[in-house]
């Protein structure tokens, strides 16, 4: 029984919303120097894609996409924990999280 459920909002709205969220994320990643902010922007990009996935799933009338999103969120939480731990460690060692200063890894 995979009949599409009647939705009140047109799907385009969701597309536009997640595109805007994604673009904000990209711009944040490119513009900001603080690694913590960059990490947050990456999360934003991820969640905009999650939103897109959920909306497609809802409009297609099947629940698999929505279940899948839960898994993504679990994994993303783990990944954020690792990322934040790294950042804390970097800050304790170097005293900054500015990515322009963290440029030892080259050549």
């Amino acid at each position, binding site marked *: 029984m995979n009949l599409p459920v009647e939705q009140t909002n047109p799907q385009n709205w969701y597309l536009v919303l997640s595109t805007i969220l994604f673009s904000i994320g*990209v711009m944040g*990643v*490119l513009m900001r*120097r603080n*690694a913590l902010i*960059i990490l947050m922007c990456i999360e934003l990009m991820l969640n905009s894609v999650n939103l897109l996935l959920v909306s497609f799933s809802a409009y297609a009338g099947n629940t698999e996409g929505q279940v899948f999103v839960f898994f993504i969120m679990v994994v993303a939480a783990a990944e954020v924990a690792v990322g934040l731990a790294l950042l804390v460690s970097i800050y304790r060692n170097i005293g900054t999280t500015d*990515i*322009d200063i*963290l*440029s*030892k*890894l*080259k*050549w």
Partner: protein
Amino acid sequence: MDNFLALTKLITPASLVALFPLLGFFVTSLFGKSLKHASGWIASGMILLSFICSLFLFLNLPTGASLNFNLLEWMKWGNITLSFGILIDPLSLVMLLVITGIGFLIHLYSIGYMHHDKGFSRFFAYLNLFIFFMLILVLGNSYLVMFIGWEGVGLCSYLLIGFWFKNDAYNDAAKKAFIMNRIGDLGFLLGMFFMLFYFGGLDFLTVNEAIKAYPINNIIIVAVTLLLFVGAMGKSAQIPLYTWLPDAMAGPTPVSALIHAATMVTAGIYMICRSNLLFAMAPHTLEVVMWVGVATSIFAAIIGIKQNDIKKVLAYSTVSQLGLMFAALGMGAFESGMFHVVTHAFFKALLFLGAGSVIHAMGGEQDVRQMGGLWKYIRITSMTFLIGTIAISGIPPLAGFFSKDEILAAAYNSHKEVWVLLSISSMITAFYMFRVFFLTFSNSFRGTEEQKHHIHESPWTMTVPLSILAILAAIAGFWGLPAVTGQTHLFSAYLKPVFEGSKAILGEAHEADHATELMLMGIAVLAAAISFGVAWKFYISSKIVPEPDSETKGFAKWVANKFYIDELYDNVIVKPMMVISDILFVLIDKLVVDLVVMATAWIVGFTGRTLRLVQTGNAGFYLFAMVIGMMILMFIQLVY
């Protein structure tokens, strides 16, 4: 039906006979370190088991029958099948008994001779591997299986000549033997290709069946036989491929006795005897075989006169005797050739082992000018060496007389000029053998005090094989008594079934009447006696000792330097080859190959050096590049 039952009983021992040495090889090579000197006894024991198997086969093979069976089908395409099979008939049995019998004695001897060598186990591993391949060569029921053994013995010969691999000269000798043999092997290989193409198979039955369709002296048969003979030339050291054999004396003396005198070098003769039907269909080739044999026999004998290294003399004598055997084959006297193979195996193995015992006593000295008077010190060695000398010189009633006389008689009946040449060659043989004997064992000792102090008789493991071989060398001739004695020639009667086909084509050699035969014998004995007398006059009465190398002059110098054949080969073949290699090294290697290789390396290096600059370490830049890249990819996706 009885025959069939008797033959089926022989399949197991026939399959086992070659496996014992292989087992010995694995055991001695894998566990040699921990076995130490036990490996010598294990290796000898394996050969003894093989010998017992061969003896069992010899006693149980019904008269006139032969056992031919396939162990496995190897390759198959179209209507051609190549299989791995075994053939037991009188010819292979004779070779089996010689190889395992003499092989066992030489293994036993080596236990004493190699006792102090560091590579003791390695030596026996190689020796066992050699016997394995030699048995494969002899047992095979097709040219292909024979070729496997043929290559295998070549490999073992290489390994054993270069056994003391820390000496560069020995390594060179090993390489020389291997390369010379490769030239011959190429002939054998091409011969096999011809046979496969024209006769549709490689096993002896198929080939012998297929050639019946061809006329005598057909160009294909002549080509095949000539190519096979090139193979035999390499393995059996005939002109022009003989120079490796004297150099092969670099190996330990038991190796010289086993491989370079008794067994491997006779493989060429075995091969021609095995293909006797093929050769009988090509009288042109037989003519070539005969003349090459005669030339080698005389040439090597002349060189032998002026050699002062006890092993070199024996080496040239081996080449000369092999020439004699080929001459016999060339005249169609196959069984006489085989008979000489057997007797020669006995007395030449005996002489080599005796020489080894002398070298052992002298602490490594091989120059006869440094010896002399050894009769007093090493009695058993001296006596056995004397028996070997008499046997090879062709003085009755020892083995060499009967087999040599048979060949000479065959020559007298068909080609008188060959008879004259071969008689001269055997006369020279008798002379230089007695020369070596007198120089080594009679008069007084010429070496240093230290050497004199060192002289001692060899241990029993060495003297027992010597004594057994001496007995064999003395009595082996009685298996082939000439017709004049009114007895059957046991040896040729035994081999008769093998050579029936070729005899039918060549026609039964017409027998000389008894008076002629007696006259020939008389001449042969007289010639040997004259040689003995001359040698006695020179080296006993006048006590002549060969001069140092630097004082040799004129023709003698040519002979002492082996007619400069090695130098000739060096200048005509090796040096031009070196020059060509140098040119190719500069042109091809430096200019082309190196260019390609260096260019590849440079391109990789350049790209790396350039692209490395992108790694700035600035994460912001990486992110930017990533986003731009993804945008470009998306754009491409949209457009196309």
